[in-house]
């Protein structure tokens, strides 16, 4: 087995397992973020989380495979340098992408909390204090309800 093949196989194994691990982490913790305390639609959080994570996993795998460009046979040292360089690039970009995803989840959470607050405020003003979001209702949500 040539060095190029060994490097490719190693790289693909690392890329795939890393993607699976990151996707699982994102799904589990993202679900926690999207859930509301007294959720009217519990399936919504699950569906949102799953859809976001699937997009992330597909993008990541595609990027990882595009990044691996083996050109011909390599000597052992060159192969090792190639593998380390590719893995470094992959890890850095996946790390950044993961942080970006976390921000997206937080954004989703905030908008959902605001919507809930607006709906509840319209129908049952007395329950306003039980809004479970980490944010108090935004300026807009409050104006929409006509608090001021």
């Amino acid at each position, binding site marked *: 087995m040539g060095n190029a093949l060994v490097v490719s196989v190693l790289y693909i194994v690392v890329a795939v397992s*890393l993607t699976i691990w*990151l996707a699982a*982490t*994102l799904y*589990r*913790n*993202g679900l*926690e*973020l999207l859930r509301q305390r007294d959720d009217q639609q519990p399936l919504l959080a699950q569906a949102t989380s799953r859809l976001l994570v699937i997009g992330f996993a597909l993008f990541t795998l595609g990027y990882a495979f595009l990044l691996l460009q083996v050109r011909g046979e390599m000597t052992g*040292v060159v192969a*090792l*340098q190639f593998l*380390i*360089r590719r*893995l*470094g*690039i*992959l*890890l*850095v*970009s*996946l*790390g*950044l992408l*993961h*942080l970006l*995803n*976390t921000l997206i*989840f*937080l954004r989703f959470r905030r908008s959902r909390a605001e919507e809930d607050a607006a709906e509840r405020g319209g129908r049952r003003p007395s329950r*306003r*204090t039980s809004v*479970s979001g*980490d*944010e*108090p*209702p935004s300026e807009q949500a*409050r104006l929409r309800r006509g*608090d*001021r």
Partner: protein
Amino acid sequence: MNGAVIVYLVYVALAIALISWLGVLLHRDGRIFLDDVFRSQTDLAAAVSRLLVTGFLVFTLGYALLLLRIDVGATPIAALRSSVQQFGLLLLSLGAMHSLNMLILLQVRRRAVSRRAGASRDLGEGRRGRVVSR
């Protein structure tokens, strides 16, 4: 296996140890900040903290790998010199990143506290019980 390779392996081991230690630290102490931001919803703070730490770990490990320059033909002394230099660079950038992380956490907490204070003023009695006293 020659001397140079051993030096490089030591570099990788040290980098991994350092990064995992930083990750543990960030997770443990960052959570306390996040607990406050999310008003003691502990599950939520833990989830956000785990997500952030995962991103930090993956990014930093990749950065450490990118810094690594392997030259198997080098004498052990030369390899040691370049490894020490790489490690210094790694430490510097990790230190900078850690400080940046701290600043972000502080900023997030300050914003949450001031937002809470504003909300309690607007909503009157209803929310006052939930505002953390400073």
